[in-house]
């Protein structure tokens, strides 16, 4: 069940007017150009108890991604494949409008949109995560924890998940008959990732398209759309969001924007992964 949001974060009229009038001049309230994402800060190996993790700031938006690997059973119809799951929590400390409780439609949408891109790209080589064919496989849990919400949770979460997955190690293990004994102190390799993608989220305000909207811009936006872009520039997922429509031309323009911005995100991830703890842009 989905309701028209009736408890909308309020942007003061003055600020709203300012956002709109600046946009008309190709400017944004925080000084960015329309096609300019906020600074990205990435800390990998942020957690000790997860097999992979990253802390990401996209402007003032903050997300933690934790990757856990556990031995479990494969799905019956895919007996030789590992299992990959994305789960997002919008924990209430991130925003005055988040309430404790099970994930709402926004959290569910976010995790499904991210999950789909990895899945459709065949990003994680699930066939290499089988341990005892048909019986035991690695289950990859990607948990996204939004801890500060200043808009564009999708791009930030996708970057966090990618940085975490790229730095995920597989624990040591031994097969004993039908049992698998895991040794989390040891390592038996890194998570096999053969494709990668980032999301680029674009908002339409008036007739203008802007990249990486802040929360105020999201609230004011007429419509929003996000494109997952693979390393090689293919589109690996789309989600239109928000309550307004867009023309096909606008959507095509948004796609071009997304393709042009994606490399910046990839660069930030690469810098952090290659250079643990670095801050990239």
């Amino acid at each position, binding site marked *: 069940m989905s*309701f028209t949001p009736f408890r909308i974060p309020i942007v003061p009229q003055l600020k709203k007017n300012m956002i709109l009038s600046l946009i008309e001049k190709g400017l944004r309230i925080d000084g960015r150009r329309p096609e300019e994402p906020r600074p990205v800060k990435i800390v990998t190996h942020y957690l000790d108890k997860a097999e992979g993790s990253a802390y990401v700031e996209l402007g003032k938006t903050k997300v933690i991604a934790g990757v856990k690997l556990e031995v479990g059973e494969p799905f019956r119809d*895919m007996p030789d494949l590992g299992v990959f799951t994305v789960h997002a929590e919008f924990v209430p400390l991130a925003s005055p409008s988040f309430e404790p409780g099970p994930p709402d439609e926004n959290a569910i949408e976010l995790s499904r949109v991210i999950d789909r891109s990895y899945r459709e790209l065949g990003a994680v080589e699930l066939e290499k995560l089988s341990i005892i064919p048909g019986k035991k496989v690695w289950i990859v849990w990607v948990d996204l924890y939004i801890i500060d919400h200043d808009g564009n949770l999708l791009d930030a979460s996708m970057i966090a998940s990618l940085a975490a997955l790229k730095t995920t190690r597989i624990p040591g293990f031994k097969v004993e008959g039908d049992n698998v004994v895991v040794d989390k102190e040891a390592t038996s390799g890194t998570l096999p990732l053969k494709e990668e993608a980032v999301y680029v989220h674009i908002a339409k305000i008036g007739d203008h398209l802007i990249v990486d909207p802040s929360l105020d811009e999201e609230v004011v936006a007429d419509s929003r759309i996000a494109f997952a872009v693979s390393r090689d520039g293919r589109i690996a997922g789309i989600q239109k969001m928000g309550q307004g429509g867009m023309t096909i031309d606008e959507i095509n323009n948004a796609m071009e924007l997304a393709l042009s911005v994606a490399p910046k995100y990839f660069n930030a991830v690469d810098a952090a992964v290659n250079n643990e703890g670095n801050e990239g842009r």
Partner: protein
Amino acid sequence: MKYGEKPQLIKEDGTRLDGRRPEEPRPIHMEVGVLENADGSALVSFGKTRVLAAVYGPREPIQKYMVLPDRAILRVRYHMAPFSTGERKSPAPSRREIELSKVIREALEPVVMTELYPRTMIDLFIEVLQADGGTRTTGVTAASLALADAGIAMRDLVSGVAIGKVNGKLVVDIDEVEDMYGEADMPVAMATRLGKVVLLQLNGVLSKEEFVKAMDMARKTLEAISEMQRKTLLEKYSKVLQS
């Protein structure tokens, strides 16, 4: 779902498994006013996919705080009947149903003139009776008919269809087999007279060129579907006038 043996989805003569040409949708059936109690209702099928939609409202919200002072709020439930799928579906709402309820609601927000009904709630209940691919686009098509049938003021109708990529080729209105073994499923819904895309998702991978072409195929198909919707509504009203 993409694993295992993959059937040949496009035959040598360029037609699909069920004999359709790439740009040909399945047989589409539309009917409005099929329920007594609902204020508006519609039954729409695309091939074997069959969806029932009903509208109640504008009416008082179930909880007093669920109102907006300047317009109606929409409440949308996309739900699959337990017998609609190959394996019985548990009736509890799945994460997929929760996401699709949101996506469909957002597709209808731009066309419903909610500003005419402040402080009320408009309920839209979508029941998938049979799922054979394209349930969300069939659902949004049925929903907009049910809204019109309920006499709710709208800026335009909404029409939906899924474009797919199967065996490397773009095709219109993919069914379940094509979805399962194909490379991409891109549901699109438009308010065609307004020229606005109101729902767009992509599960799968497309090149930039394929995407542009797919959007164009969607637009053409949706214009035809929109015409069918208008005819369906007109037929009902003329019947009403005759009786």
